[in-house]
């Protein structure tokens, strides 16, 4: 049999070491209680689909904030809050190389066209329109591919996306 002589002089230091080992073992064994890793949020920023992140963006302010922060760094187009108020129902928003506007549908009064016009026909066309309203409200629109420098889709007029786009204080980030 192997014998290990335990030195009482080392007891305190060993107890500290033991605490670390024990907790490490606990951590490796524990399951559940999962939070959200930043790489999942980043993957979503990059256009990936992730229902957990999509849900967290609606329900968790911290996730929304970090998503916004990452988006600002990775944005293809960033239209900050407008300072001046607008008298138009759907103010046109723009930044260098990009214009975002809503156009009422003639066929359906309850629907509006979302029209994004890009100055260049770039290869990394935006795939998602992110809208951050006052009071940290968030909504997004998955975009179709651009055609001839235009991305166009339809929104319901009373959708949160349309409402946010109508507000010039909404920050718009295209990624």
């Amino acid at each position, binding site marked *: 049999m192997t014998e290990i002589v335990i030195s009482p002089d080392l007891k305190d230091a060993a107890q500290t070491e033991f605490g670390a080992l024990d907790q490490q073992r606990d951590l490796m064994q524990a399951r559940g209680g999962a939070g959200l890793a930043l790489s999942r949020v980043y993957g979503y920023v990059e256009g990936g689909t992730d229902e957990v992140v999509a849900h967290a963006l609606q329900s968790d302010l911290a996730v929304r904030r970090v998503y916004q922060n990452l988006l600002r760094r990775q944005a293809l187009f960033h239209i900050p809050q407008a300072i001046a108020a607008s008298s138009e129902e759907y103010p046109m928003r723009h930044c260098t190389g990009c214009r975002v506007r809503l156009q009422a*549908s*003639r*066929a359906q009064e309850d629907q509006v066209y979302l029209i994004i016009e890009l100055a260049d026909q770039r290869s990394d066309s935006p795939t998602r329109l992110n809208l951050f309203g006052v009071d940290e409200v968030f909504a997004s629109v998955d975009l179709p591919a651009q*055609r001839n420098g*235009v991305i*166009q889709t*339809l929104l319901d007029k009373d959708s949160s996306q349309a409402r946010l786009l109508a507000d010039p204080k909404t920050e718009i980030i295209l990624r």
Partner: protein
Amino acid sequence: MKRIAILIATTGGPVLVDRITPEPAPQSMVCLRRQSDVLPISADYDDFVRAGSGVIMREFGPYEEGAFRLDVSGPIGTGQSWQLGVFAAHAIFKSETAVLSDLETADLIVWLTGTVDYDLNVADVDHMAQKVESSAFVLADYIAKGTPILFGAGLENAQFLADHRPPEGITVCPLNTTHDLLEILGLVANVPETVAEESERSSKSFILMAVLTLAALVALYLFLVKDHAEEEVLQVQTPLEINLTSDRGKNPIFFFGDYLNLMVEVSEAAWVQCFYAQADGKTFRIYPNDQVKEVTRFEPNRLHILSGGENSSFAIKLGPPEGREEVACYASLQNIDIDPARPPKDSVVDVLHFDLKP
């Protein structure tokens, strides 16, 4: 004003062109059921409309607005066979003598499939048998009502349709170019409305034949299926067979709120039981059910409309959960309860798989 319903034939069932609206937007779009759901074929539709790449603006323009919104009744998948129907719809939209109509109030139903090239030639497309098969259920009611129906397609496709002897009430029109179609519809200036007039003239006979038309369409369907069935018979000598399909064909896509209209055919007089398996694993028996007062054997070699038909005792409306679902119909010579987990050896089964979406 002549009311013309344009049906775009798809393998998932005929899709009605509901409405065309010029819109102050940069791109033309195809929308589903007047909702904000934009169909994936929108980009191709925009090309088809746009002057330069397409033919619609060139043939029917100019319009004050640069784009159109086309509303349709159901999804249209990939491919270009919608072009002929869309072309016809735009021709009617431009016309001063005709308007786009729904099916109920239509004077004429035009069922179309084919592509249209830049020179307005109509070309043939695939999956004709499936398209006809999946249209049978919808068209049966209107044949019965006496609404004239015109099948338009490219030359070979039209030949295929003619070879299978469509029932009276359906006129098959081979199309070389879109001009042929416009002539037939009476949409070309100074050209007599040949088929349309003829159809009107013969509408009385349609009414007289109303009782027979459903059977006739079923015959058409059966004939189309028969080609395949005969081949199979040569390979497998099975005495009892069952064939299950829907009004949207064998591989349909359904959305919440849609009705699942099932059709069954057996090769011998047999008892039939059908089971619905949800995506979440739950299975229900849907035929026979409480609504079926008298359960009898199914007659052989005729199409039985199981659910959703005018004479059906029940309809199936689809709802959550979403996913890949299936209906399995068993036929047996014995009148016994069938457990789908352990069906009797002498029973035969056919399964209809479909995607159910929100």
